[in-house]
Every structure is written in C-alpha cells, then in structure tokens.
C-alpha cells in the first residue's frame, strides 16, 4: 500500500509537469516551446522507426564503460584511503582539484588533449565519477563500527570472512547510493562531451536539432535522455530494495 502511494505520487508529479508544459506552450504560442504532445509524438516516432536506438546505444555504451571505470577506481580509492593514512594525505588535494574543476573545462581539455574518441569520453567520465564515489566510500568505511572488528577478532574470523561477511555487506548500501549518484553524473558528462565533440550519441542529436531550430525534436531527444535516466535510476532503486533487506 505504501509503495502504491509512493508510485501514485511520483506519477502524479510527472503528469503535473507535463500539464504545466502543455498549458505554458498553449499560452506562449511560440516555436521556442512546442506543446508536450508534439514533442512526444516526435519521441514515439523516433522509437517506432528505431532512429532513437543508435544514438541511445552509443551514449549508453560510453556512459556505462566510463561509469564502471570510475566506480571501480572510486571504490579502490575509498578503501585505500581508509587503509593508508599516507595515501589519503597524498591524494586529498588531487581529489579536491578533480572535484572543484568545472566539468565543462575538463571536457574541453580532454577532447583537446586526447582527441575525440570514445576512449576519451570513457576516461573523462571515469575521472569525474572517481572522486564522487571515492569520497562516499571512504567516508562510509570510516563510519564502520570498530566494535564489530573486536567481535570478529574474538570469534577468530579470518580476513576472508571479515571481508565477505562484514566489510562488503556493510558497504553495499553506500555503493548502491554512490552508484546512483555516479551514474547520473556519468550520463550528464557523457552527454555534454557528445554535444561538444562528437558526431553520434544523444548529445550530438541535441546539438543538431538545436542548430536547425527544431525545438520539438530537441525536446524529444531530451525526453529520451531523461526517460532513460529515470528507468536506470528506478532499476538501481529496485536492486537496492532487493539487496538491502535489513
């Protein structure tokens, strides 16, 4: 019942947004804001003809690879920073710089230095996601209850048992939360990189429609972008509910 209420509220909020869009478009009556129905007709057309899947696949591929790279590096960083104070001190400033540098600047720099390849985008996403996931994991691990270590020591639990039965399960909620944030970030970074430096992917489609001032189609591509992100986010939340039962 609670879940039903939650979903109903979420669907209601989406309907309100779409209605607001539709009404605003009718009132403004301008090419700059076509009605939601027109954009969605374009979106349905894109999906029906299959034109949506090529760009969507390219963006998903780069984003997923970059996210996976950033996630693995971020988790490794978080664990290493907790295990070694020296490593934490050495990497602190690098991490701060990576976090504070505007993402757009990083995109330009990477495209200029490494060229306009998928590898560049994957590397870029990885490096943007790393500090976010890394700090999340590092801070979560620091909250680990030392008394549990004492309990494990008294029961002579070997390292393997501690890792698989204590530390990893403890980290799962943080990893899932960091994963959700990291994937959203990856998606945005990949999208922006495509806008500025690619000839395929969702970003490139948005740029093209913008250049020919086809706002309805631009919004259709944007809706596809957002819908995909929403679906992935919901899948991650579902996984979280399945895995984190306690």
């Amino acid at each position, binding site marked *: 019942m609670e879940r039903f209420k939650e979903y109903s509220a979420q669907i209601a909020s989406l309907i309100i947004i779409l209605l607001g869009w539709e009404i605003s478009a009718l009132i403004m009556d301008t090419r700059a804001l076509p009605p939601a129905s027109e954009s969605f007709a374009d979106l349905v057309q894109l999906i029906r003809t299959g034109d949506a899947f090529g760009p969507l696949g390219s963006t998903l591929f780069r984003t997923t690879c970059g996210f996976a790279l950033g996630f693995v590096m971020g988790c490794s960083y978080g664990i290493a920073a907790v295990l070694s104070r020296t490593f934490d001190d050495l990497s602190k400033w690098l991490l701060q710089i990576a976090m504070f540098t505007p993402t757009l600047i990083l995109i330009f720099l990477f495209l200029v230095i490494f060229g306009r390849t998928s590898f560049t985008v994957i590397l870029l996403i990885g490096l943007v996601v790393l500090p976010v996931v890394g700090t999340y994991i590092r801070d979560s691990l620091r909250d680990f209850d030392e008394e549990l270590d004492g309990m*494990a*020591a008294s029961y*002579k639990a070997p390292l393997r*048992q501690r890792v698989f039965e204590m530390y990893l399960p403890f980290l*799962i909620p943080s990893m899932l939360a960091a994963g959700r944030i990291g994937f959203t970030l990856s998606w945005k970074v990949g999208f922006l990189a495509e806008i500025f430096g690619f000839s395929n992917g969702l970003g490139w489609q948005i740029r093209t429609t913008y250049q020919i001032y086809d706002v309805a189609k631009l919004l259709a591509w944007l809706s596809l972008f957002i819908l995909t992100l929403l679906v992935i986010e919901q899948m991650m939340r579902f996984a979280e509910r399945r895995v984190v039962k*306690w």
Partner: protein
Amino acid sequence: MLEMTKDTAAAGETKVSLKNLQLSFPDQSGGVKQIYQGLDLEIEKGSFTVLLGPSGCGKSTLLNIMDGLLQPNSADEILIDGEDLRDRPDLSRQMAYVFQGPRLLKWKTLAENAEFGLRGLGVQPRDRWPELMERYFAAVGLSEYMHHYPSQVSGGMQQRAAIVRAWVNEPQILLMDEPFSHLDEITAAEMRRILVDLWRAEEVHRTVVFVTHDISEAAQLATDIVMLTPAPSSICFRRKVDLPWPRHIESDEVMDLEKELRKAFAERAGVRF
C-alpha cells in the same frame, strides 16, 4: 579446531591461571596508567566466576587477555588448562565472548549471526550447526525469530541472540563482559534467568567468567566472586557462593550476600555504594 566435548574434569581443577600480570596504558595527560601490577587470578573449571569491581579497574581487560585479544606488558603465566596461551594461541578457540552490546551484524539474520561465530571458530562437524542453532535459539526462546534481522527484534532479543552466538560454539570458557548492563532491569532479570538456566542445564558446567560492577547481579549469578580494587587492581576479596537457584533478589540469603559484598567493597576496595 574447537573441541565439542564438555569439560570432564571435576570441579576444583584450575581452568584459567594468570600469574604476575603487568599492564599499563599511556593516559591522556601523557603519563602512564598502571592497570595491573602483579595480579594473580585463578578460575576454577566449571565455575560461574563473577569479576566484580569499579569502572576502570580492568575487569574487561582481563577478559581480553584471557581471549588472547590483548597482550599484557608481561606475565609469568597465562595458562588455559595448564598450557600458556602465548605459546598456544589456538587455545582461545575454546572460548566465546559476549559483549556489553549485542554487536550483531545488522545485514545478517540472527541465525546467520550465530553462524558467523561457528564459522570463525571453525566448529566441526559442520553438519551439526543447524541442530546446535535450533537447540540454543529454542533455549533462549528465539526459535521463531531466528530468521529475523536484528532491526526487527528488541534489544533484549538481540542480546539473547548474542548469547546464542557464543553458546552455540559450545565453548569451554564463556567470557561475558557486562552483557546486561544496557538493558532495562526487567529484561536484564529475564536474561539472567535464561543464562543461569542454560548454564545449569548442562550436566557438566561450562566455565563462565562474568564481568560486572553490579553487586546484586553478582549475588544472583556467581558460584565464585572475585572482587577487584580500583586500578592498579588487585584482588581484595574472594568468596565462593553456595546458594541454590533460582536466587530471588529479595531472598534473605541474596540480600545478606549483597550486604557482605558492599561491606567488603567499602573496607577493602575503598568503594562505597
């Protein structure tokens, strides 16, 4: 590997013997806090020994030393069944620990938490685990809750599960560090009853070393009371208790014992209640 056999030796035999224990810690002011200066302690096999003393006197530290979790600065001997724990660290596998808090893993069910201890201590044969768990969860009245997560049960039930996690290993020595101090008095009284029932139910009793600063708790549980002075601690009073169970908190015998312990605390440890 933990031996699953019960103690077979007759009462009166020494199970644990600590001799000339020396331990100090750096204190916050940059000095050194002496915890033990030559402490000697013997624990009888099959006894329910209660270590009674004021906070900070090193009662819990003694349990950590017995379990091999902490090394003293020096000691002439730390013997378990006549063998030195420092030469035979595997002897600590005969022991199981119950802490002040339940220290359960919240992502594991109560049964899985008990299994964590079984796996850690390497209790064999493995196919006995389900039977052991069923037996001890039933003994503490938690059969229906074995597959619940800690967050789904009360604090008292969590502590009962922690006792099962220790007892299910059928340890020869059970170390208990103020296990009921965080519970309300009604729950704590129920837990004491369960603990005594578990301990008495077995034909040959396990050795229990129970730490508390609660005189009433000591009087209700112990067969042997060891009183420690504030640090640097020494044993200032020791007494065998031969009262029958169940011991009612308001019975004359228990109240007399409490009075005696209070008096001893005041006169010998300089601690007044």
